[in-house]
């Protein structure tokens, strides 16, 4: 395994970590807001608040982690993505900023303000959409060179591309699916029957659009980027495995094994996510940048990997502590003031 592959694997791990924790967070915010509108807020409020409050900060750090690691391992991406994505990523930053600060204002400041909660929900579904433009652009086909030799994002191509919209749609529905599945598990630990019933239903509702859009994207890839499509096909067994996990998770959901059901949801996404990552090898940005020509110098790569290992030694026990105190801790989830 070359050091470039280690680098991209580490980054892919961060990104996957962000996808899962952020999905739970974004989805929770969305359910929290939508139940206000549908008048079911009292059912889910306490479960969601008790999960979100101690962990909301951690979510953001995952994103910065991925981002800083990306520039560390692949400095050239700073030039390409930085130049092209000024507007979409700035929009994400603004939404993230509003969301984070309004959550803090609403939770620690003036409690229970409806405006803050709605804002938190709405921004939560817009952020995955704006962040996924980075993923879409990296597929290639949306960057054009101007007469003066600058590179810029081809907005017309982006907004009229069914492929781009499918990815955005997938990011939206999978956020809701992952989140509902986790919250179903969380409410079952809390023995909160009302919330459990609601989240179980949400999991069912959002599971099918997720799998349908995911399949649709694989097919669309054929017209969008044939090389990548063939890459996906050669890994068909991974995607089949991911589908099996999807079926398993639904079966376990029906059986009332919510913890295992959620684990299979994570597995489903992990396998598909890594399969997708491998299939686009070795491109970071098709066709401008591969992981080989964008890679940092070897000294820095080894230094980063060393620090990464040391950092994990520090983080894993700390995350375990959070898990033990807030996520697996029955008395905390059930009772205790938020």
């Amino acid at each position, binding site marked *: 395994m070359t050091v470039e592959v280690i680098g991209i694997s580490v980054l892919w791990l961060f990104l996957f970590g962000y996808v899962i924790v952020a999905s739970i967070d974004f989805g929770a915010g969305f359910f929290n807001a939508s139940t206000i509108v549908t008048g079911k807020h009292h059912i889910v409020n306490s479960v969601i608040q008790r999960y979100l409050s101690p962990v909301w900060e951690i979510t953001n750090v995952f994103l910065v982690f991925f981002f*800083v690691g990306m*520039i560390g391992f692949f400095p050239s991406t*700073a030039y390409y993505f*930085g130049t092209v994505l000024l507007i979409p990523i*700035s929009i994400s*930053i603004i939404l993230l900023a509003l969301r984070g600060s309004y959550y803090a204002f609403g939770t620690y400041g003036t409690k229970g303000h409806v405006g803050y909660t709605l804002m938190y929900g709405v921004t939560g579904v817009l952020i995955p959409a704006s962040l996924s433009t980075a993923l879409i652009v990296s597929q290639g086909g949306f960057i054009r060179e101007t007469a003066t030799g600058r590179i810029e994002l081809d907005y017309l191509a982006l907004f009229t591309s069914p492929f781009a919209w499918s990815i955005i749609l997938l990011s939206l529905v999978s956020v809701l699916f992952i989140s509902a599945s986790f919250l179903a598990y969380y409410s079952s630990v809390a023995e909160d029957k009302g919330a459990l019933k609601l989240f179980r239903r949400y999991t069912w509702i959002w599971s099918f659009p997720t799998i349908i859009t995911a399949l649709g994207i694989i097919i669309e890839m054929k017209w969008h980027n044939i090389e990548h499509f063939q890459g996906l096909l050669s890994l068909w067994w991974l995607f089949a495995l991911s589908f099996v996990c999807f079926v398993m998770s639904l079966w376990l959901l029906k059986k009332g094994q919510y913890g295992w059901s959620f684990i299979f949801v994570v597995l489903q996404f992990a396998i598909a996510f890594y399969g997708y990552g491998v299939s686009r090898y070795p491109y970071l940005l098709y066709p401008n940048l591969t992981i080989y020509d964008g890679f940092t110098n070897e000294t820095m790569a080894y230094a*980063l990997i060393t620090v990464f290992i040391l950092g994990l030694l520090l983080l894993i026990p700390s995350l375990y502590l959070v898990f033990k105190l807030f996520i697996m801790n029955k008395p905390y989830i059930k009772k205790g003031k938020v």
Partner: protein
Amino acid sequence: MESVEFSRYLTMLTLSVHVVFATVGVGVPIFIAIAHWLGLKRGDEHYLLLAKRWARGYVISVAVGVVTGTAIALQLALLWPRFMEFAGQLVALPLFMETFAFFFEAIFLGIYLYTWNRFKNPKHHFLLLIPVVLGAAMSALFITSVNAFMNTPQGFTLVDGQLTNIQPLLAMFNPAMPTKVAHVLTSAYMTAAFILASIAAFHLWRGNNHVYHRKALSLTMKVALIFSIATALVGDLSGKFLAEYQPEKLAAAEWHFETEGEAPLVLYGILTETNEVKYAIRIPYALSILVHSHPSGVVTGLNDIPEEYHPPYLIHYFFDIMVTIGVWLTVLSLFYMVALWRNWSVIKSKMFRFLLVTSGPLAMVAIQAGWWFTEVGRQPWIMRGFMTTAEGATDSPHVPLMLVAFAILYFILVVGTGVVLTRMFKNNPVEKELEKINAIQRSEAK
């Protein structure tokens, strides 16, 4: 104007907002820890409540610090893609470590806030603050080392535009790093001390003479004095550092044109268009003494530096603001301590208390002025000696639009923070909370 100008303004705007919350973020945990520790040690409800209330306000500022920090982290690549492409190969290590330190802090802060009364042994709860304090200081250390690298790049060799012989640790521990980190940390603790002192002084000034506020004031002022002196000492070392490694920055700050010995220190004044200094106070020999600890030491003047590398002479004003506030606050806290010790009643006067109320905002102004001085002072470079600001900037034409968008965002954030913090503490005054605690204790005693 070009993208580079707008990129500079947007970066300046983001960092100026971020540094307010970042300074609070680095400085305040140590005070929460001191108050919590004193509370446990003396069994004093007042100190425990101080820790609790400070922590509550702290979270709001951390939240805004996190989001503005995320903004600047991403903006670095969005606004300065060429620079990040180049420097990413050299400073990725401290950037990466900064994220780890921050992650560590975030985790333990979350746990600390949600575990009041959850530990059987209250000391275990207190111990959670140690990673918070350490994480905050470490992230300041790492990120400042990146900034220091931009001032004094080293740890690589540039051969025909190609980087070779890269030494990440050498890049991190560059000449500017020790003084910069020390100055950032001491001034953050100093500023946090004065901000918390301002809050206590505000209540006393308004005529609330509760012992809680008096305890808070004397605790924060003591620490403020210590860190004011430390900040001044490190500031002196930073001046000596500048003379050696960035003479153009010091010369511009001091409007020092002729290279000469027995150089005077120029305070205040204005600069005419022909580069004459008017209405200034000159302290003879002081600049030479500052730089060389010797009255006849020779200090490089701007005339010996090629003009295209001169920083804007405007930084003189930033330097003056920073130093004046620093000296004033040191004197103020020293006077307060002496008066407290000698029992002078003047510190209980409304006038003096008002001076204390202004100390926190003043310290924050000094932080801003100091950063503007150091950042504007390294123009025209983004990486001194290697890359100019214009070479590092994006060529996207959309930066002005983003500048407007972010200005609106920061306006909302800053106003929101102000409103929420005021409401939070106004609606729940200390007396009410102490009464509640007493009521609980009474019912437990029964």
